[in-house]
């Protein structure tokens, strides 16, 4: 048994490594370590005079300003973790950051020239700066943004909840399923395949390798050993840390984007500003989620999944192959999570800790809906997505996760079983 688990871990490691070789090892140390990038409007105009700073762990600060071609270079004394900040007050009027997180982020620079992607938009689509339009329009905009965000959360949370429902595992490495999906697509994309083709390949790969494979070589043996739920939870934390830094090792610490659709200009539909890619992805997400729900309602294995979530012992007594159901749940969950990761990669960027950053939001969604309830994840995700976006009306965008976490703590105090959950037995 001991040998099997060890072997299993080895295989998982190798599978991951084999996959990422196409992503290329990080470049050897160059003479100078710098953070660099180009700032331009969606229309391609250079954005001049923007201050970018990097602060190291000891508080030593270096900086660079974008030149007439929009290029900035921040020289660094050495590799390490830096706090990289864009001084938003130096942005020209009407120009905002695509992602509020870009204003301040922690960046692992391993050496050499680290390219930093900072997406800018015109007219303040979802950036930090105040949107000039009236409050009611802003509310509509944020509401629709919230729906799109909620869809991403739902894609990521469904698998987490299905796994919890069928096995009881609170999976702290769910976020890494998103990252792995996104980076697998990135690896295929970097090898020259258009992201439209790379994405489905990555999703299928993720479903079977990261989902089915992970369950097969790690979680199933642990269930056989009767590892406790809390122990399993801590194992999932170890796995998350391991996977995260595996991504750093192979892809480096800086964010990157897919080759296509990176700087897509925004469009306006009525009062709503967005990008075509976000709309198409949102539509695909709705289709994927509807398909999942329909599958759970109608198909035999879907019904079996619900039966196992209700009562595993009873389900197994009535002849349902519980292990098979769990395998399917991992496949579906990992596939959806990979989609969520690629979604994030396309609309923002791919970065090694993207999964970690969304994990707590996933928990918030799942807890809101009720841990283990099948539809709870989707309902909870939409609520969290919309709530988080709407809170930016009153709190700074950089703190929007605070709203989600606060909501989650509140729900746990008032109704620990979640909106759709049931109370557990006492005594």
């Amino acid at each position, binding site marked *: 048994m001991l040998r099997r688990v060890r072997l299993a871990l080895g295989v998982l490691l190798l599978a991951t490594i084999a996959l990422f070789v196409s992503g290329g090892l*990080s470049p050897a140390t160059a003479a100078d370590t710098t953070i660099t990038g180009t700032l331009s409007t969606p229309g391609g105009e250079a954005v001049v005079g923007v201050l970018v700073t990097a602060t190291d762990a000891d508080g030593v600060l270096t900086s660079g300003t974008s030149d007439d071609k929009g290029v900035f270079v921040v020289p660094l004394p050495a590799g390490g973790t830096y706090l990289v900040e864009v001084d938003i007050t130096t942005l020209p009027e009407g120009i905002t950051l695509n992602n509020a997180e870009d204003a301040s982020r922690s960046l692992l620079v391993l050496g050499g020239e680290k390219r930093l992607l900072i997406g800018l938009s015109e007219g303040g689509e979802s950036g930090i700066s105040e949107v000039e339009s009236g409050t009611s329009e802003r509310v509509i905009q944020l509401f629709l943004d919230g729906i799109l965000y909620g869809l991403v959360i739902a894609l990521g949370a469904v698998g987490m909840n299905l796994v919890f429902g069928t096995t009881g595992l609170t999976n702290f490495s769910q976020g890494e399923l998103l990252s792995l999906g996104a980076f697998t697509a990135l690896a295929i994309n970097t090898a020259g395949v258009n992201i439209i083709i790379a994405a489905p390949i990555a999703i299928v790969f993720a479903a079977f390798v990261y989902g089915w494979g992970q369950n097969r070589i790690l979680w199933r043996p642990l269930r056989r050993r009767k590892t406790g739920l809390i122990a399993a939870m*801590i*194992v999932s934390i170890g796995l998350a*840390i*391991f996977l995260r*830094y595996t991504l750093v090792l192979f892809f480096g610490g800086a964010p990157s984007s897919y080759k296509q659709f990176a700087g897509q200009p925004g469009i306006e539909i009525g009062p709503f500003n967005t990008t075509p890619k976000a709309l198409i992805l949102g539509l695909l997400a709705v289709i994927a989620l509807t398909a999942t729900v329909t599958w759970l309602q109608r198909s035999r294995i879907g019904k079996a999944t619900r039966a196992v979530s209700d009562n595993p012992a009873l389900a197994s007594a009535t002849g349902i192959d519980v292990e098979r159901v769990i395998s399917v749940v991992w496949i579906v969950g990992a596939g959806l999570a990979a989609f969520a990761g690629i979604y994030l990669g396309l609309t923002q960027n791919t970065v090694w800790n993207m999964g970690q950053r969304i994990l707590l939001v996933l928990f918030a969604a799942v*807890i809101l809906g009720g841990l283990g309830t099948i539809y709870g994840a989707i309902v909870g995700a939409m609520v969290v997505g919309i709530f988080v976006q709407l809170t930016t009306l009153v709190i700074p965008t950089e703190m929007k996760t605070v709203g989600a*976490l606060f909501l989650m703590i509140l729900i746990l105090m008032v109704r620990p079983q979640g909106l759709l959950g049931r109370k557990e037995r006492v005594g």
Partner: protein
Amino acid sequence: MDFVQIFSLTITQAVGVTALIYLFAAIGLNVQFGYTGLLNFGQVAFVAAGAYAVGVIVLTFDLGLWLAVVVGVVVSTLLALLLGIPTLRLRADYLAIVTIAASELLRLLVRSIAFKDVFGGAQGLNGKLGQEFHDLNPLPADFTLPVLTWSRQDLWVVIVGWSLALLFTLLVWGLVRSPWGRVVKGIREDEDAVVSLGKNVFVYKMQALIIGGGIAAFGGILWAVAKQSVQPDTFQPDFTFFVYTILLLGGAARVFGPIAGTIIFWFLLAGFGELLSSLINNGYIEFLTPTDVGSIRFMLMGLGLMLLMIFRPQGIFGDRRELALDAR
């Protein structure tokens, strides 16, 4: 390759300042998780509370360090109450999620632009933080150690840090062998059973959270004083998980578990890092660069946590008798 130097660097890290910070967090976590069974995933918040207390009192308000130490303990107690009141009645996994969420929530708050005046935003608080403490340094100005490579200032921190750590270990030892310790161990085993015997479980859990949090806060105070810098992004959830790794390594619910775990953890981690760096720099390993060492160290840490939990949940010194009972 210079093995003496590798060894010296390794030992220096294994019992050095950073190790001490983790040690304080681990002693506290041992009270909470090891003895009481509280799955506190927000331990880093207590460390941050200690560190920020020093940063804010000394730099923002320009008051004394000793006041800051008192404030640190008070703030960590308040934090324990704030965290504990809503969560201590929850199931173990909910408690875990809420505590990790709360620790992130606090980190996001202190790093936000809105409170930049007080907490220094994303860059945190940097400057002369422990002057009163360093002024007390009795070591002669040109003091150096053989083998170990601490500066005079770090050595002073290390001496005081280890004395305090031993004191806290003694405190924990006293607590867990008393009837109080018996109650909290009972809570770890089965909360309902302890309630049925007439104990107010909530109060005991809260006491454990406060004591454990207070000890961890000293890790934060030490951090601020030794590194003269308090930065929000160093207080990420991973810190807590490394503390768990340390505790599980040395053995949860063992009085000397945190100390053993910390030394072994940092010895292995630093030793591996130094060895690998040196192998790479000397051209023995060509497919890696020196900058990869950091990621590989973290990967091993994650892997180590997994393997420990799977194969030796009772720690590397734990006895089989206990393992056989571990039906969790």
